[in-house]
């Protein structure tokens, strides 16, 4: 186990191995005074036995993860049987497994994949999410690194608060603000008309090509400060001695960011990257729905809004099927990302 993020577990294990060795040494001495290493060589207990012994002594510690386990099973695994609805002609009130259940196999999937707009929805989802990821992932890292090298504490704190304050604006309010600024008769349009632009203004909310930039940049504006916090926390763990040493060696500030700070938070970055790749195809439907207009449907209709539309019109099976499809893609992406990172950077979740 070389994984840093599970460092505690590794430490725990090393400790217990040591304990075990010492115990064995005492036993051995009591038996005849041979050296512990020799004993280990001659009579090494199997891994299983070690585990068993260990469990007997400290097994109760496992109880601490019980609440989390129960939570996960009740709220995450429990409801999962609901994906069966994807293979049914389901109405609320039907039994999910029962005599009256109307199984239709892959019927819902067929309907979904044969939707003439399926390709567009898929591409829209993919582009919206991947572009959001490409912009939104590095941004907080850069911000955290820069913030970390601000020296005056007050300014650093002030900036940090300023950056993460927008996170607390509710989505509806945020989209309302966007519409006031970029929408029909909004601030931007008024300005552009004043300064001799197109007589009708820019009408960004009606332009399909403006939807993605608006969505992504407003989202990042709202969240970059908040996402930077975790990197800042990781950065605070960097040993000042490293910085001192680098300074003595004549490293510039910029150089220190690259050679000291960045390597220090690399494990965090990789872990968060794997996690966000696992969520790549799910960029929440609420904000998309709020920003949707007749004019930008061409780019703003994505898989999750399609699912929402299906639910609203009572097509529960179809919605579940398309939701399941989305999740399967997410899981595949997660596995690929984890595998790649394991091979390339020797960092992985499992």
């Amino acid at each position, binding site marked *: 186990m070389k994984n840093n993020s599970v460092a505690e577990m590794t430490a725990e294990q090393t400790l217990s191995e040591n304990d075990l060795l010492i115990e064995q040494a005492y036993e051995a001495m009591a038996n005849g005074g041979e050296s512990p290493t020799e004993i280990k060589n001659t009579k090494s207990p199997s891994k299983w036995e070690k585990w068993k012994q260990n469990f007997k002594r400290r097994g109760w510690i496992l109880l601490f993860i019980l609440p989390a386990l129960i939570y996960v099973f009740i709220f995450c695994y429990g409801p999962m049987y609901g994906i069966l609805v994807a293979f049914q002609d389901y109405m609320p009130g039907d039994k999910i497994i029962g005599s009256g259940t109307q199984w239709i196999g892959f019927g819902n999937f067929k309907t979904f994949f044969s939707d003439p707009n399926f390709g567009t929805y898929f591409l829209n989802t993919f582009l919206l999410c991947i572009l959001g990821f490409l912009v939104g992932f590095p941004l907080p890292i850069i911000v955290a690194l820069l913030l970390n090298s601000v020296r005056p504490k007050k300014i650093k704190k002030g900036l940090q608060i300023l950056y993460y304050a927008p996170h607390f604006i509710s989505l509806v309010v945020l989209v309302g603000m966007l519409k006031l600024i970029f929408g029909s008769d909004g601030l931007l349009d008024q300005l552009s008309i004043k300064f001799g632009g197109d007589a009708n203004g820019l009408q960004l909310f009606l332009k399909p090509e403006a939807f993605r930039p608006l969505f992504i940049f407003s989202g990042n504006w709202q969240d970059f400060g908040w996402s930077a916090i975790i990197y800042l926390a990781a950065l605070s763990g960097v040993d000042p001695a490293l910085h001192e040493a680098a300074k003595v060696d004549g490293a510039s500030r910029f150089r220190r960011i690259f050679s000291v700070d960045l390597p220090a938070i690399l494990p965090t970055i990789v872990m968060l990257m794997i996690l966000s790749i696992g969520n790549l195809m799910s960029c929440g439907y609420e904000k998309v729905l709020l920003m949707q207009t007749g*004019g930008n449907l061409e780019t703003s209709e994505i898989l999750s809004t399609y699912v929402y539309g299906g639910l609203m019109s009572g097509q529960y099976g179809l919605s579940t099927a398309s939701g399941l499809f989305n999740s399967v893609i997410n899981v595949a992406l997660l596995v690929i990302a984890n595998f790649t990172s394991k091979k390339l950077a020797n960092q992985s979740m499992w």
Partner: protein
Amino acid sequence: MKKAIIGIAVAVIWFAVVISYTVIATAGKGDEDGHEFTVLTVKEETVKDYNTMPVFKALAKETGKDVYWTYNTSTQYSNNTDPVGLSGIDAIYHSNFSNLQLYNYGSRGRIVAIDQYLKYMPNFSKILDERPDIWEALKSPDGHIYSLPRVEEMGLKTHPNLLFLNKAWVEKLIDSNNMPSEVSSLTKSDLVDGLTLKRSQFKAILQKFKDTHSESDIPLSFVSGCWQGNESDLIASFGVPENTQHKTIVDDKIIFTVESENWYNAIKELNDWYNKKLIRSTAFTQTQDEFLAKGQDGRYGSFYWWEKETVVSSDLQDDYIMLQPLVDDATGKQYVGLSNELEIEKGACVILSACHDKEGLLSYFDKFFEPLYSAQLNYGSIDSGAFEKQKEGEKLVPNDDHGAQSADDFRMKNAPYGVVYLTQEVWDNYVEMEPRAKLRLERLDVYLQNNAFDNIKAIPNLNYTKDELDTLHRYENSLGKNITSWMINKITSSGSPSVSDWQSFLKTNGTSISKIKEVNQRAYDSYLEATNSSN
């Protein structure tokens, strides 16, 4: 340690309070116990309690049935994924179920097939005998009727748009000698309801409005895609029977208006109107409420709406005149399409299978179809002053004068709507239409007098098979979105849409269009067969 214990105790008590509150809130709702029937209705808080409405008291007295009305607001109701699963209720009034929902619930036996109880429903079965189109409209794919209808035939809904022009603004143009050359012969005495203008003349006037007014005044407004006051009649003036679904019947053939070259010409021209700022982008983004709020102080040069009374404040009513439909410059004719808004609505009431006495409850609801009850359900109870005092045997006349309250407000609070049967026969013999409806009919007579479309029909409630329903669901949703977005994009783009743009748009959506046409045509043909054969 002590602090920790106190903390835990507080948390436990808090949880207990929250949980017991939710249990109490969900469990002990209403006092439906001890009544023969409990019916769930969907109404807003401002509407009076049905249990106190005189019309329901009269119904109870006449039928001897003890019906208790409980309610959900429309928000509560739409948040409930399975209203049919609610316990303790026998029926849902204003259920608003779609074709697919009715069929799905019905075929699973969760709501009652009403056609099996017709012998307990003399009024309803008489209606079905006389009106095969109503029977046809209510039928589900399996041939059963799963809901009671709402039938209100005034002939108003098929034409949800009228065009109004700001007379005061035109008079100002005449006074300042600023009239465009296209309408130079127009005098003040011409500015009366029913004025006829060519589209090019109308455009010239709008252009003057734009040039002589500030940014906050709007030459032409409407609410795109709304069921009333949309752009359909403007597009139709190019000679294509447009409606918001872009789908209609011409010579008994289902057609899509978007396939017509006239439709493309209309979009191209609207793009020009947009770029000349005669139409604003808000016409495509605003809601009804926003449209109505902006119109109150007379900021519109012209607008499409159901009526002018709701759009403009009462002191400015005389500033606006109703125009006839715009005359197409190319053909010299007036064209008006038909909306597919139907006067026979399904889903006004469904009976749940859990109901212990279906015959009894249905015989109660059967009374709703009688003219005097229908009228009261639609306008408010006689005993609450909804109608003027009349002698025995005279027609009911809706009362317009409710003191400080407007007629609209009174009706909203006092009329339950829902299951009614109001047809020409009822208007002729039992009830007068309300003054607003009569005024609108008069206006429609003028508006439609020269309509050149005499071969078009609105699409009736068609009866699809289960497979057809699925096909429609598959294609209609995405086609609707594609058309809306293409149309709005092209109208609001700075460049004019080319023929090849339009053709490639048709090509992309060709499959959807032909599938939907095919299914609708099949269903419409059998509709024709069914309604003709039983006549």
